[in-house]
């Protein structure tokens, strides 16, 4: 067991811990000032702001969709249910670059709806709306997949009891069902947020990567790297990494509250 433990720890250390640790070190190598300056330039600030906007749009939408769909799948029988179930997993299977391509083909100038949008002066691709769509796409399944097993486990008895006591379907949902699934929803929201924060490939294709306009924090990391500004790249990375660590901590916290074995659905996303 000792040997196994050592092997495991060495592997994790070399693959996960050391690289991440080095970034923190390299960022502050030239002093906190330089790092701070890098993340507070107008372009950098815009990038972080845009990332947050995308998160604020994508996560709530997918949360509502997620809870509604989980209820549909766990509390209802209908034809095409297994098809719906499979389609929901698609965002997990698709390379983010393909997601970006797909959006261009629908909403781009030469895409299916390109003319309609152009006529109405709405720009989807190379603009925030397109990036929002990309973010929504990649985060779609998380809340559904986290709420489904909780709904299954909680069962219908409490809901039936509420009904016999005179509660309407809406009252039953808000007072009984939602409180029962809240940790599943919370966990799903945390995972979605992490995914949205970290999205790169799809927004890279869809955004046009115009610095200061359509650049997210993740795109900025690449941009700074290619501009031979390692401190810029590292410091942006550190900010994102800190957000990632916050996510990890939340995940861990909610994990314990959920009190059930983890990874019943191991289909986490692609970036």
């Amino acid at each position, binding site marked *: 067991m000792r040997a196994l433990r050592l092997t495991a720890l060495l592997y994790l250390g070399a693959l996960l811990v050391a690289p991440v640790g080095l970034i923190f070190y390299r960022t502050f190598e030239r002093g906190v000032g330089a790092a701070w300056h890098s993340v507070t330039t107008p372009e950098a600030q815009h990038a972080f702001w845009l990332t947050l906007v995308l998160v604020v749009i994508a996560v709530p939408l997918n949360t509502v969709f997620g809870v509604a769909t989980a209820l549909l799948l766990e509390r209802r029988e209908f034809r095409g249910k297994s098809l719906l179930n499979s389609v929901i997993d698609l965002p997990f299977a698709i390379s983010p670059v393909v997601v970006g391509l797909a959006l261009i083909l629908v909403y781009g100038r030469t895409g299916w709806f390109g003319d309609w949008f152009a006529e109405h002066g709405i720009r989807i691709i190379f603009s925030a709306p397109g990036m929002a769509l990309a973010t929504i796409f990649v985060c779609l399944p998380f809340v559904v997949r986290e709420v489904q097993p909780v709904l299954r486990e909680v069962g219908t*008895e*409490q809901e*039936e*009891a*509420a*009904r*016999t*006591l*005179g*509660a*309407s379907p809406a*009252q039953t949902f808000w*007072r*009984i069902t939602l*409180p*029962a699934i809240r940790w599943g929803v919370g966990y799903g929201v945390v995972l979605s947020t992490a995914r949205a924060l970290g999205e790169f490939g799809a927004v890279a294709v869809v955004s046009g990567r115009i610095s200061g306009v359509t650049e997210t924090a993740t795109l900025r990391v690449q941009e700074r790297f290619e501009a031979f500004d390692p401190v810029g790249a590292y410091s942006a990375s550190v900010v994102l990494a800190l957000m990632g660590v916050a996510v990890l901590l939340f995940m861990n916290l909610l994990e314990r509250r959920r009190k059930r074995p983890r990874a019943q659905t191991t289909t986490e996303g692609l970036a």
Partner: protein
Amino acid sequence: MAIEATGITKHFGDFKALDDVAVHVPDGSLTALLGPSGSGKSTLLRVIAGLEEPDAGHVRFGDRDVTSVSAQDRGVGFVFQHYAAFKHMTVRDNVAFGLKIRKQPKDKIKARVEELLKLVHLTGWADRYPAQLSGGQRQRMALARALAVEPQVLLLDEPFGALDTRVREELRDWLRRLHDEVHVTTIFVTHDQQEAMEVAEQIVVVNEGRIEQAGAPAEVYEKPATPFVMEFVGPVTKLGERTVRPHDLQIVQEAQPGALEAMVERVVHLGFEVRAELLPTDGPALSVQLTRAEAEQLELREGEVVWVRAAYGPWAPEFRSSTKVA
């Protein structure tokens, strides 16, 4: 509020859970739906509650047809086997739930909740959470919650099934006394024939989606309408070809008309009762239930040869109509 269910049929996919079932529950009575697992008794209860929709048939509360009325509007109190407690609410909020839904004034709710908690002996527990209560306490809370909105009908689905024997017996007793006090038309589902016999005024025996018999406990026990009812509601043993109750048999020392010759295989002392396991020279093994006094008088020994006959009940030659209670 009398309950009338007629022509109830219910399928789950291909499985027929209820087959043209009819039940009558008199106003204010305490009725048991008794049957083995999968017999359809819970399904019938849920149809009456409005939690399941029948494929055919009608349900009436008094003279009101409630077949198409949702559970929300039927005015039933329902108690589940596993309590269905609202885990995120205190005991007080659980009991008050139905009243809050109906937007009753706060002080009225408070008073009613306290009244009910007193009724179910949970007065000091109002601010605890269900997880902090024992199984028996949770079920009492569930009962209080169901009664809070003054239902016309109280339905209980194997209410004591998840509890320890001791607690079960206490609550059984307590339900009976509660019913005497509150007089709501009550139906409860159970697979435990003893429970049904002890608590109910009327027993409805359900098997494979059909009603086998409905009647008072004594009637169902002594005048079973079908072999299933006889075997399910009380102990049985075989005397030759016939199914009889072990306590309806009598052991005698000499041959008599209608008696079977048998060897005593084993004599088991069960406190006040004695069970003698006999092997007839001709026919399957059987058991006879005697009192301790009777066994002593006979001086039964293992290996001894005796004769056994039906002395009581419907098979006894001298008692054509069974009036004797064993």
